[in-house]
């Protein structure tokens, strides 16, 4: 069980900080608020937003990371989405993709359905679960100083990397990027591969 510390970080500012100097990062976002957070920074063709398939963000990131070993791949998702696919941490750890990082925007809530508590509210420690799966680099972030240390890990530390960022549970304005599936798929592939 994780030690209880005060949660102060604002998710939109966290995501803006993470993506500020993203370079050619490939980004996969989990359904719900992480998709809106990424869109609040910019709607980038190197973003692939999941609007469904709950529990699938990390494995979508793994498939992409294996296909594009020269590119850094970041999965940004929520604690509820991560918990639904938590076995995927074991699958990723065994594959050891050196270019894959996972960032959790952990508000300890199911935000889309009315802010019900997730297991992380009750002490379930996602970073410890990643560590137990075999991730060599894991961190739980509670404040701006820790975030400053963790962001270079997301970009540069040999993966797989797992960072759980504790964020406050306030509702944020919805900022909706495109959600037509074929459009998102085609533009991501065209931008990355030069063809669809």
């Amino acid at each position: 069980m994780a030690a209880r510390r005060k949660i102060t970080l604002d998710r939109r500012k966290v995501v803006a900080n993470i993506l500020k100097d993203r370079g050619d990062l490939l980004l996969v976002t989990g359904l719900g608020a992480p998709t809106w957070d990424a869109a609040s920074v910019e709607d980038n063709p190197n973003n692939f937003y999941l609007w469904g398939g709950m529990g699938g963000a990390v494995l979508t990131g793994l498939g992409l990371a294996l296909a594009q070993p020269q590119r850094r791949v970041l999965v940004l998702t929520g604690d509820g989405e991560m918990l639904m696919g938590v076995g995927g941490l074991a699958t990723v750890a065994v594959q050891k993709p050196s270019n894959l990082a996972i960032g959790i925007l952990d508000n300890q809530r199911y935000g889309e359905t009315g802010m019900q508590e997730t297991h992380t509210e009750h002490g379930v420690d996602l970073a410890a679960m990643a560590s137990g799966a075999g991730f060599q680099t894991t961190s739980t972030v509670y404040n701006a100083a820790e975030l400053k240390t963790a962001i270079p890990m997301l970009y540069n530390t040999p993966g797989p990397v797992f960072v759980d960022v504790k964020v406050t549970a306030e509702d944020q304005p919805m900022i909706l990027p495109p959600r037509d599936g074929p459009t998102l798929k085609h533009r991501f592939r065209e931008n990355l591969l030069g063809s669809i």
Partner: protein
Amino acid sequence: MVSKKSKTWHWSQDVHQLFKKIGIKQVAYVPDGGLAKLLERCQADKSMRSVVLTTEEEGVAQMAGAWLGGQRGVLLTQSGGVGNCINMLSMMQECRIPLLSLVSMRGEWGETFPWQVPMGQSTIPALEAAKVIVHHVDQAEKVPETVQAAAKLAFDANRAVAVVISQRISGSGSKG
């Protein structure tokens, strides 16, 4: 290639060669007896990455990521694993991302283990309800050509396709 009339011929030889020919680079699976020979061939082949999953739905999401990154993959699963995939299949349908899957049946031809029957009998209806195109095959000689046709439908026509391999071929679970 060993003649198909040869007693040593197994459909997995031709399917593995087909995977190489069409450029399969990621092979995702939860181990299964009916697929064991194919899994061994893929594991031993350095030109493709074998990924063992904790649950089959992971493989659906992985195939989406592979396609986004420009690679072709295949999901290999026992019929029981189909039940684990249903919600994740919505991603393939909604984004029209190709999915090639081989499903090894249990709970069907000559099954003797009762707990395999419910999901086995639900496998094809569940796939069809999830809008996955099903190619059912019950003769070993026809598996390679069926996989080849399914791969075209998946990767060239952007569809989710499952080759459902009858228990009549594997004989799994039918020895009493």
